[in-house]
């Protein structure tokens, strides 16, 4: 064990201390590096879903599959799943069969790097890629009823499963870019995601209770929208709130941010379709 005073000294050393000087110091430097690594990504407390910051009425609505308006999109998605589309004449079901089996767990792992062209895809991106490559149909517009419905249906199959975004060599650069966005002040209000969702979760911004800003319930039915909407729609609203330039829904910036958010949400259950105020 390192004596307490030596440890205290070690912490006071500049991190650029010359590790080569004495053999004994090497392990100390290792310790310092470890401390630094932790400082870069401090351990976070267990994430809490936006649902736990919502009012009792919203929670009750989400819990009731007959009352939850988001289930309408899930039902539409189920219909679309089986309809042949595009020049291929194939439906989603032609390749993926029964969604409850084939889509189970998928949303919990997304966004993912596409094995083919190495781009990072969220569920919407994957659906559009299937349409173009396999169905020979055009991509669906972000936020269109069809894309929302298919996304909600696919993601719903992972409901209650824990988000388990994995950060690895292949997606690390995307993760880092997403993290940069999360901590970058922007817009005329000069605020970053962290200022609201990390430092002020649980507090009121006017009438809204700020949550930790997780994406585990999307697409959600938002009472304010009177509609289901995608995670990117919500993110664009946050950019708008700080009076920043809004990246397009489906843009690389927002998909990278979505991956970073998924890593923050690790362990939270997928809630799709969530209900929010």
């Amino acid at each position, binding site marked *: 064990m390192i004596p307490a005073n030596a440890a205290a000294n070690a912490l006071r050393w500049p991190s650029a201390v010359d590790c080569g000087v004495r053999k004994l110091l090497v392990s100390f430097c290792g310790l310092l590096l470890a401390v630094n690594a932790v400082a870069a990504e401090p351990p976070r407390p267990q994430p809490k879903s936006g649902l736990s910051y919502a009012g009792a009425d919203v929670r009750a609505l989400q819990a009731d599959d007959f009352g939850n308006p988001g289930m309408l999109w899930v039902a539409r998605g189920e219909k679309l799943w089986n309809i042949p589309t595009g020049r291929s004449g194939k439906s989603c079901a032609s390749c993926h069969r029964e969604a409850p089996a084939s889509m189970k767990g998928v949303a919990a792992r997304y966004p993912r790097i596409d094995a083919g062209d190495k781009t990072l895809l969220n569920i919407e991106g994957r659906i559009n890629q299937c349409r173009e490559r396999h169905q020979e149909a055009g991509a669906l517009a972000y936020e269109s009823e069809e894309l929302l419905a298919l996304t909600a249906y696919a993601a719903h199959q992972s409901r209650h499963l824990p988000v388990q975004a994995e950060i690895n060599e292949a997606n690390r650069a995307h993760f880092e870019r997403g993290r940069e966005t999360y901590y970058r002040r922007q*817009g005329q*209000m000069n*605020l970053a995601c962290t200022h609201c969702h990390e430092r002020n979760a649980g*507090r*009121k*911004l*006017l*009438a809204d209770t700020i949550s930790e800003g997780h994406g585990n319930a999307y697409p959600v039915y938002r009472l304010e929208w009177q509609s289901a909407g995608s995670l990117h729609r919500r993110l664009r609203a946050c950019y708008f709130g700080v009076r920043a*330039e*809004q990246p397009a829904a489906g843009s690389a910036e927002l998909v990278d941010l979505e991956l970073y958010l998924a890593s923050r949400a690790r362990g939270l259950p997928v809630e799709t379709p969530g209900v929010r105020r």
Partner: protein
Amino acid sequence: MMLAAMAGYAVAAAPPLELYRIEGDAIHAPLVSTAGDPLRGRAVLSGRDANCLLCHAVAETGVRFMGDIAPPLSGVGARLSEGQLRLRIVDQSRLNPDTVMPSYYRINGLIRVAPAYRGKPVLNAQQIEDVIAYLKTLK
């Protein structure tokens, strides 16, 4: 402007901002010569341009929903001088670089500002003087 900078004054980066001078934790001189109007100031404070109530509660406004991210401003006119109020609204980040409060009279050092707001401070100089005049009444 050069002279001002050399004398150690803080200068607003470019027009259209008025120059101002920070002494200690205050900006003593008003940004414009027309005196601030507390009634207009109250409207600015609770209005959509400034959105102060997003974060601060001000019981005296009688507004129903107000934020609690920031300290309530009731009594702030007794706690802080006019000059101290001015710096906190103009650019709180001078006092606390880590602050969550936006700088209301600043256009430099901001990134990715939406086109509609680019190159403009959140409030103009007169609006800031009006808000200060209102806050001074909160004693």
